[in-house]
């Protein structure tokens, strides 16, 4: 009898404690309906609280740039939050300057909506749209790089500047339960506006690139959104130097095709670096363009060609090759896309050649 009473007492206490937890969760984690006031009342949204500002806006079809998928590692989703954001988080600090902090800029991925909130969104971001595309073709460009051509739904088109990027969304796969998105530069020319071409290199252990490389086939559907980004041709000069490595060729290709198509009077030098020949692609394509256009020069270079490569082109680190070719950069701009190591090294070389960093453009994701 005594044992039964003890068991019953413990059960009753456990049930009581569980109820307290459930009730507390309801009150503390349920933020109810909140209002997002955008651009001083231009737009007001009623949303369910509890999610990040970035994902809540995305759910309302307002797309804020983000390359990392909301992990606070790219710093692109900065927005001015005038009211209701709560205190600045340590995860945001590295991405916000003193001026930005003073002006209430926050990372939208780190701000959780818990109450009514007032934000400012640049007008151009309202033009960003989401598309459900169909994969028209997949091309194996090198051992770890694939090219994807994504066809927009019939009757739809996308307006982008050469050099901008799209966000590419995965679906859950293998052991991965949630969808993620990452940023990839557009590789086709803006006039080809019923499709988006992306060049994606497989990152070891990368969630999104592994999805693209192992899960997708022609005919599959892919959600993308965009266009985003400030990497596009300025052209306030007579000559430009473009340097890319690996999948970094994508936005450079778009810019080259745009300049040639529009007949823009600017001289282009495209340096494409790799270690061995197996890492190069589109060689014939660019050599052919260079033969047909006097204002375009293509300089592929290998840093350590293999004997079987029979390589007769430039040899050396891409920075060494640029150093050999560029003399006076005073009337030049630089456009870079590739690994952060390559970008840093190239900024230094271009600076030495008279192209200051302010005239060197690259995506910072």
């Amino acid at each position, binding site marked *: 009898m005594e044992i039964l009473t003890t068991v019953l007492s413990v059960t009753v206490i456990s049930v009581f404690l569980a109820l307290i937890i459930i009730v507390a969760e309801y009150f503390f984690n349920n933020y109810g309906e909140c209002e997002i006031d955008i651009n001083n009342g231009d737009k007001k949204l009623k949303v369910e609280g509890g999610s990040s500002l970035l994902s809540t806006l995305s759910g309302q079809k307002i797309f804020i740039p983000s390359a*990392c998928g909301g992990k606070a590692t790219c710093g692109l989703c900065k927005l001015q939050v005038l009211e209701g954001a709560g205190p600045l988080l340590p995860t945001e600090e590295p991405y916000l300057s003193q001026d930005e902090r003073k002006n209430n800029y926050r990372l939208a991925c780190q701000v959780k909506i818990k109450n009514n909130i007032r934000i400012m969104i640049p007008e151009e971001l309202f033009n960003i749209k989401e598309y459900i595309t169909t994969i028209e073709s997949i091309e194996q460009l090198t051992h770890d790089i694939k090219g994807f051509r994504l066809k927009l739904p019939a009757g739809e088109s996308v307006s982008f500047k050469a050099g901008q990027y799209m966000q590419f969304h995965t679906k859950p796969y293998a052991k991965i339960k*949630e969808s993620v998105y990452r940023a990839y530069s557009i590789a086709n020319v803006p006039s080809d506006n019923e499709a988006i071409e992306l060049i994606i290199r497989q990152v070891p252990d990368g969630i999104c690139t592994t999805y693209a490389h192992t899960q997708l086939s022609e005919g599959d559907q892919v959600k993308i959104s965009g266009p985003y980004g400030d990497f596009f041709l300025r052209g306030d000069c007579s000559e430009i130097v473009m340097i890319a490595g690996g999948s970094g060729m994508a936005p450079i290709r778009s810019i080259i095709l745009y300049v040639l198509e529009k007949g823009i009077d600017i001289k282009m030098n495209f340096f494409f670096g790799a270690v061995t020949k197996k890492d190069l692609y589109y060689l014939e394509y660019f050599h052919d363009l260079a033969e047909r256009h006097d204002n375009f020069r293509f300089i592929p270079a290998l840093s350590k060609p293999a004997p079987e490569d029979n390589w007769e082109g430039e040899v050396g680190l891409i920075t060494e090759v640029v150093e050999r070719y560029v003399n006076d950069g005073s009337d030049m701009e630089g456009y870079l896309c590739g690994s952060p190591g390559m970008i840093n090294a190239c900024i230094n070389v271009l600076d030495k050649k008279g192209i200051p960093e302010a005239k060197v453009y690259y995506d910072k*994701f």
Partner: protein
Amino acid sequence: MKQSPELEVIQTNMMPGTLSAHGFIGEDSRNLADILRADAKALKQIGISQMTLADKMQELTNFGIPGLGRPMPMNNRFEIEVEDYMGRLPCPFQDNAKVDKRQTRVRRLDTGVIMRWTDLNIHMIREHGFFEGHGSIYRLDPVELSRFLGII
């Protein structure tokens, strides 16, 4: 060994698909506390600190960075190839560290043995004594690593 709720959360961050495709635990059935304890014990037995290992790994990575992917010979002992990728990775231990997506592949010129690590491996070894679980694609056995680096 039971583990704290904090380590439980961290172990969840280490599952496939949260921060990387394959995660950091691999096929290891132990909990994070046990994985950390076993590797700390192995290091203690050989008298090497996690800082010493991380410093040496960082030294090799730094040597390879200017090669931009080209193999770089170092002191007739190692050949180092460093590749970096766009973007950064947050540390699963939630310490606010954001680490470059960089992979270092090192070949011992005398034995031909190859080991590879990421910048996140270096950070997690230095700050948290974490060498990843058995079967994880970037698992580094602390004793093998010490031997490879010539520390023991």
